[in-house]
């Protein structure tokens, strides 16, 4: 009861094409995350799904019904915004109940649903307050609560955590994950943050410049990126890309993740000088300027003492080295 099909959706603002033919299938109960660089069209795609923006062409099908001409309120969706977007003049309770009231739901039913949602999100003490009297984290929980009470077929989240501080972000992320498990609802979630993407998603959709680069589970994208863009976008620190010609390889580019390189003081594949070392406690990031490979990042688990200027040899794990062709696609 919450499937979504997007068929060849295009969207242009005047002459600027923002979405260039998106095809996507989301099955009932799935948690799908859209990631991509700023301006790639994630929010626009979400707004097209919500009906807040008309697509230039293509179809949006929710639960088997084409909703391209249906207004947002009738699509069976709920949306949580980055800026919370609570109604400033209404109390928390009325903020959550407004949508149902507009739809003509009986008052008793509205109260019942608000009761369930507010206990789920621990909002009971705040029901009589106005948004101005809440902290950022509480406001975002109210916004999530407002979505929950609608019992939608489809939840849409547009970067819901990016206005929260780091600790709160982790907590709210957990809450959203639990919410998904309890409600078993279909959720679509837009984010910049790849930790959020990797931890929450059943399926990640990587977007770039209005096109889908790859769709897959988090580990699938990490282990088998389809192209250079996805390889560089998923994983932190970013994958190292080395010009194939410099290494005497046939591939245009060779990619290896920082965690798939080992270092040694005496011997190895690439000789280099330490430019900078970042000590994070659990792991250490070394920046090496290599004769053959150029500037690369190496991630070492645990503490590793290396002074800038020291000479080190880095060796890539051959089983975890990616080869990309001239078109950026992975070579098999």
């Amino acid at each position, binding site marked *: 009861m919450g499937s979504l099909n997007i068929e060849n959706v295009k969207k242009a603002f005047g002459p600027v094409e923002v979405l260039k033919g998106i095809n996507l299938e989301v099955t009932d109960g799935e948690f799908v995350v859209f990631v991509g660089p700023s301006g790639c069209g994630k929010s626009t795609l979400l707004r097209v799904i919500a009906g807040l923006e008309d697509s230039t062409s293509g179809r949006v099908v929710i639960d088997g019904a084409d909703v391209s001409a249906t207004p*947002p309120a009738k699509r069976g969706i*709920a949306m949580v*915004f980055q*800026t919370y*977007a*609570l*109604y400033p003049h209404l109390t928390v309770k009325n903020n959550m109940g*407004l949508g149902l009231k*507009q*739809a003509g739901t009986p008052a008793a039913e509205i109260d019942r649903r608000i009761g369930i949602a507010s206990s789920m999100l621990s909002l009971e003490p705040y029901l009589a307050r106005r948004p101005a009297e809440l902290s950022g984290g509480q406001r975002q929980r109210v916004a999530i609560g407002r979505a929950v009470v609608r019992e939608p077929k489809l939840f849409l989240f547009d970067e819901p955590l990016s206005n929260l501080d780091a600790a709160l972000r982790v907590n709210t992320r957990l809450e959203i994950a639990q919410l998904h498990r309890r409600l078993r609802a279909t959720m679509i979630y837009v984010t910049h943050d790849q930790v959020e993407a990797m931890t929450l998603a059943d399926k990640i959709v990587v977007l770039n410049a209005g096109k889908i680069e790859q769709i897959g589970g988090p580990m699938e994208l990490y282990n088998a990126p389809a192209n250079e863009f996805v390889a560089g976008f998923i994983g932190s620190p970013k994958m190292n890309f080395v010009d194939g010609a410099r290494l005497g390889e046939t591939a245009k580019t060779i990619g290896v993740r920082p965690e798939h390189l080992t270092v040694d003081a005496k011997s190895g594949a690439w000789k280099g000088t330490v430019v900078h070392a970042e000590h994070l406690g659990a792991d250490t990031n070394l920046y090496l300027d290599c004769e053959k490979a150029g500037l690369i990042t190496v991630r070492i688990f645990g503490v590793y003492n290396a002074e800038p200027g020291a000479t080190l040899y880095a060796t890539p794990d051959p089983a975890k080295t990616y080869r990309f062709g001239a078109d950026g696609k992975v070579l098999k």
Partner: protein
Amino acid sequence: MSTATHSLPRTIGAHAVLLTYTVIALFPVIIVIMNSFKSRAGIFGAPLTPPTPKTFDLIGYTTVIGQGDFIHYFQNSLVVTVASLFFVLLFGAMAAFALSEYRFRGNSMMGLYLALGIMIPIRLGTVAILQLMVASGLVNTLTALILVYTAQGLPLAVFILSEFMKQVSDDLKNAGRIDGLSEYTIFFRLVLPLVRPSMATVAVFTMIPIWNDLWFPLILAPSEETKTVTLGAQLFLGQFVTNWNAILAALSLAIMPVLILYVIFSRQLIRGITSGAVK
């Protein structure tokens, strides 16, 4: 505000400048009010001194109040000002919302066209307006004045309000749409309360010229029935004898309503002017 950045000489300097300005701005108003309480001899004998027991006289006020119609003129002014203000704010805000919220062909041309009125004084069209009013039988009605003043106030209102409405969060409006609110509800319940300070700014800038206007009442509605206060005060300006007591009293009384409206709006007004400067 920290005290470190406010040394004593600078504070004194700033206050001196502001006080000087206040005195200059208030001087004519105070002279008018002061002299309105004096006898004719007192006004001409020593115009700059406050009323003394010898020169104190309420003759001006008794003349004005005694001229029974004056209350009626007041009413006319108030009706015209409040009604025009209402329409300017309502239509101005609605047009501003459409311009800032919806993408349609010719949106920016429309905005420019609506703002053009700021630069072209409406008085240039007086003859045409008079012909229009004569043709539609509206001469000597308050409706004529309300229509003209609404037209006069709209350009600035649309211009200022559309700038402020662009700043209202899109997410909030979209949340309303998802909850099934109509565009009217979104406009009246979500957007208007958030731009209230700028509405107050527009209200003050619109209200004062309307209240003080002499031109259009004189041309469009000079009848006894529809005279406004500013026009009514002309009654005492004779060709040979001018009743200065009555004029000064009438003008002093005319200040009151605007002053009251201003006080109502001013709290909002200051927020409107400084919003954006301090987040």
